């Protein structure tokens, strides 16, 4: 199923995901524009406040909506595929009419201590990339990253795109423990571990901020923008000790 219309750069595919979800798919690549389209569609659906839709899960190139079967049948009289296709048509029409359509997106500036005590893979990456640790930090902090999606564990944000000059593969064997706040890179992606967990990303630093909290939930939302800035070990400890963490 493709919806190709003028003014729409993307063509969506629709998959009915079992009997209680619908998957909307774009091209299978990590790309900021494609991902922005996902967040725009997500926002459009959320704003419609359809009671039957229990969850909307964006990923790099897809949006999954989870629905309540009983509630959905109150509003869908034709078949489900038509319902899904109509959502896309309405979305495209809406975008045409509202040229000022803007994503609700927050910019987060995240302090990161790139001290080797935290950035346990920095030396190895510098060697592999034939560059200096300072240069890696400079490159990592020079970009604004997009939160493509959250997953893996509560609050874990997949962000990108990491500059190709410092892209490295994840560890072939995951570490049994990566500490909370650890900032990692893996391929085109960067991310922060919200809590202690096993993980295979290459660790380059650590943030003193709380990324996930059971009450306030996740610091980042899908579609948000994130930049990193370097701090010293002293600043790291100061922020860490100050219980009024920015969240």
């Amino acid at each position, binding site marked *: 199923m493709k919806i190709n219309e003028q003014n729409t750069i993307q063509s969506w595919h629709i998959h009915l995901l079992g009997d209680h979800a619908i998957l909307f798919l774009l091209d299978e690549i990590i790309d900021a524009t494609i991902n922005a389209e996902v967040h725009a569609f997500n926002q459009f659906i959320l704003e419609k406040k359809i009671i039957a839709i229990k969850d909307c899960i964006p990923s790099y190139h897809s949006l999954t909506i989870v629905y309540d079967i009983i509630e959905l049948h109150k509003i869908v009289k034709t078949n489900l595929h038509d319902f899904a296709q109509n959502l896309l048509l309405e979305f495209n029409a809406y975008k045409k009419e509202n040229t000022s359509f803007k994503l609700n997106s927050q910019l987060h500036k995240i302090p990161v201590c790139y001290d080797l005590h935290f950035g346990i893979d920095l030396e190895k990456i510098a060697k592999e990339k034939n560059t200096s640790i300072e240069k890696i930090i400079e490159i990592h902090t020079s970009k604004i990253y997009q939160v493509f999606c959250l997953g893996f564990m509560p609050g874990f944000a997949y962000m990108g795109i990491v500059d190709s000059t410092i892209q490295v593969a994840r560890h072939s064997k995951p570490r049994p423990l990566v500490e909370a706040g650890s900032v990692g890179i893996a391929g085109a992606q960067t991310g922060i571990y919200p809590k202690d967990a096993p993980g295979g990303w290459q660790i380059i630093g650590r943030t003193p901020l709380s990324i996930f909290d059971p009450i306030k939930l*996740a610091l980042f939302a899908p579609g948000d923008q994130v930049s990193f800035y370097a701090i010293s070990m002293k600043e790291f400890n100061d922020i860490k000790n100050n219980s009024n963490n920015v969240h």
Partner: protein
Amino acid sequence: MSIKIIKKGIADSLQNAGHYGHQHLGIQVGGYMDFLSAQLANKIVGNSLNQTVYEIHFPASHFEFEETIFISITGANFIPVLNEKSIPMHEKILVNKGDVLQFLQPIQGRIAYLAFSTTVNSNQVPTTLIEEVEQLIFNTSPIRFIPGPAWNELDPASIQQLLTAHFHTTLQSNRMGFQLEGPSLHTIAQKSYLSAGVTRGTMQLLPNGQIIILMADHQTVGGYPNLGQIILVDLPRLAQILHQTPIQFRLSNVSSAHEQYQFIQAQFTS
């Protein structure tokens, strides 16, 4: 209302219908593994269908009641006894302060549900509904699924095997997912997928050719090939299947799955 656990079971927990609305933040839904038995337990004691219940595995906890309440037990039969005297399942039972509930032996199924309430007046649950639920959670016909986005990536021999061979759950099965053992399945081409949303019942193909079926506490997104999803009314049956019990799969479709879900839910709400 208070219930004391005087001896902790191996994997008992309090569960409700799950927390939707946060999966975009990577927060799992959770909730009942077998929603049919949980809803039935609630209906029997006069609760609303989605109340919190104890989800009980064997060896089960020993419960002591600290006040007079009503309870009901559904799902797996672990031979429930109250003060060492046998009590029936699927019935509203009055328990008094100091009464002790224990489960002696697993006879059928994997998960029992214990609902509790102080409601005196509740309508008799029709025997037909109890039988309907038992039929849905314990019948031995193939588990039904709807093909997923990667279904067509499977090679024809693997499709044939998935639809005919016997699989069984392994010990690597828990509330997050059931890892199956069966013939090794293969895709036509080695293709890597970007992570996308998954649901409960999603059948993922692992790199070793085996299937994992996502259950109540599953992650929100996944990057393994998505072969299909088990239909909702068959998930409780899968949840109740014991290790080493052979499982077969059969194709279903959305409209038939919806009809069956609506049919059983209509009986619960009537």
